[in-house]
């Protein structure tokens, strides 16, 4: 079955659960910046937690912390990843519990530090500690292919590639796939697809993107304004029952835990419909 499937950690008392089975560390990466890695990490994590999985989200973008904002947790972050690595505080002090789910935690990135400050071996050690306590460790990778990228993939076993239907994003994704360790089988999320434009021949289709990347397709996220509203508010759209984007993230989480969701639709619903409908009645926009 899917590479991500994992046997559940016995969730008995904390601490005893450790070491029984290690969770899966999945890095969310893309090469290019601004394609939706952080939004994807926040929403896939939220959706996994909603399925009852114990999930920790790690912001590996040292120096440019963002994941806390998308999750609406920026006021709760007191310590960060480098505090833990350098032994200033314990892991428990640095983990921030999500407002909405008791299964979901965040380990924030250091904002006033640099990517080069992270030691790769210590990063790997930290990821292993997290895998002892959580079923899924989702690592939000920084853009680029330098130190930050290498540290982010160091402690992971799997990768999700986020790519938008643009020439530059596909080129960078292709480069990143080539840099992942041998033996990995990364899966693809195509983000910000506008099916109406694809239909008119004005946007690369999912098939066009994957003709180049040739990866198993994990999901397709339509482009809708609703995600901007949710990011403004710091409320992951994965919890929005009326959003097509939310539905796409929930479907991805389902596939990650090994649910049979069938083939991924490469022509997601017309963008805007659910959002517009919701905005009309709920005034969310």
């Amino acid at each position, binding site marked *: 079955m899917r590479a991500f499937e994992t046997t559940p950690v016995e969730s008995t008392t904390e601490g005893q659960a450790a070491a029984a089975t290690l969770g899966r560390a999945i890095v969310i990466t893309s090469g290019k910046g601004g394609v939706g890695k952080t939004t994807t990490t926040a929403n896939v994590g939220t959706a996994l937690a909603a399925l009852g999985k114990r999930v920790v989200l790690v912001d590996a973008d040292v120096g440019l912390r963002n994941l806390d904002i998308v999750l609406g947790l920026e006021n709760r972050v007191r310590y960060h990843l480098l505090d833990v690595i350098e032994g200033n505080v314990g892991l428990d002090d640095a983990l921030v519990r999500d407002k909405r789910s008791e299964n979901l935690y965040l380990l924030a990135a250091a904002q006033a530090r640099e990517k080069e400050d992270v030691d790769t071996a210590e990063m790997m050690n930290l990821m292993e500690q997290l895998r002892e306590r959580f079923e899924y460790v989702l690592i939000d990778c920084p853009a680029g292919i330098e130190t930050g990228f290498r540290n982010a993939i160091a402690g992971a076993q799997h990768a999700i590639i986020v790519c938008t239907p643009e020439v530059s994003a596909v*080129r960078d994704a292709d480069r990143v796939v080539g840099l992942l360790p041998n033996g990995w089988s990364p899966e693809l999320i195509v983000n910000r697809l506008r099916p109406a434009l694809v239909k008119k021949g004005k946007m690369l289709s999912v098939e066009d993107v994957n003709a180049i990347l040739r990866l198993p397709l994990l999901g397709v996220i339509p482009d809708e304004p609703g995600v901007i509203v949710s990011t403004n508010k710091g409320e992951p759209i994965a919890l929005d029952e009326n959003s097509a984007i939310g539905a796409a993230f929930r479907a991805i989480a389902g596939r990650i835990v090994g649910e049979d969701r069938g083939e991924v639709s490469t022509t997601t619903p017309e963008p805007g419909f659910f959002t517009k409908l919701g905005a009309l009645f709920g005034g969310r926009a």
Partner: protein
Amino acid sequence: MLDFLKKSDFFKPFFRREGSGATARERLRLVLLSDHLSLAPDVVDALKAELFAVLSKYVDIDPQHAEVTFEMREREVAMLASVPILAVRNDRPSAPRPPAPPATRVRRRKRKGAVQTKLVPTSMGNSAQA
């Protein structure tokens, strides 16, 4: 005529793949080609020109209707050439002697992409004139 049809708004739905998406697809193909082969676009042009020049030593070809494309195969790139042959040349130079086998075995470098050349005979009737 075909160009006119493509430009005409009335027929647009029949040529929907000709939007900027097609341009993006072609740019993506070319940029990845040079990424994978480490070949700059002008090198690809030079390769085509020399390929045609070599073929022309043996047969009359129609470079205007020749197609040289590169396609992705798994994680490799293959070159496919489809070159219309107009006529077989009778004035071709005597076949060059095959290179002498190397004295010692040279280890071959792993090839990055297969090169295939497909010669498509078109109007063979013309060959009588040559």
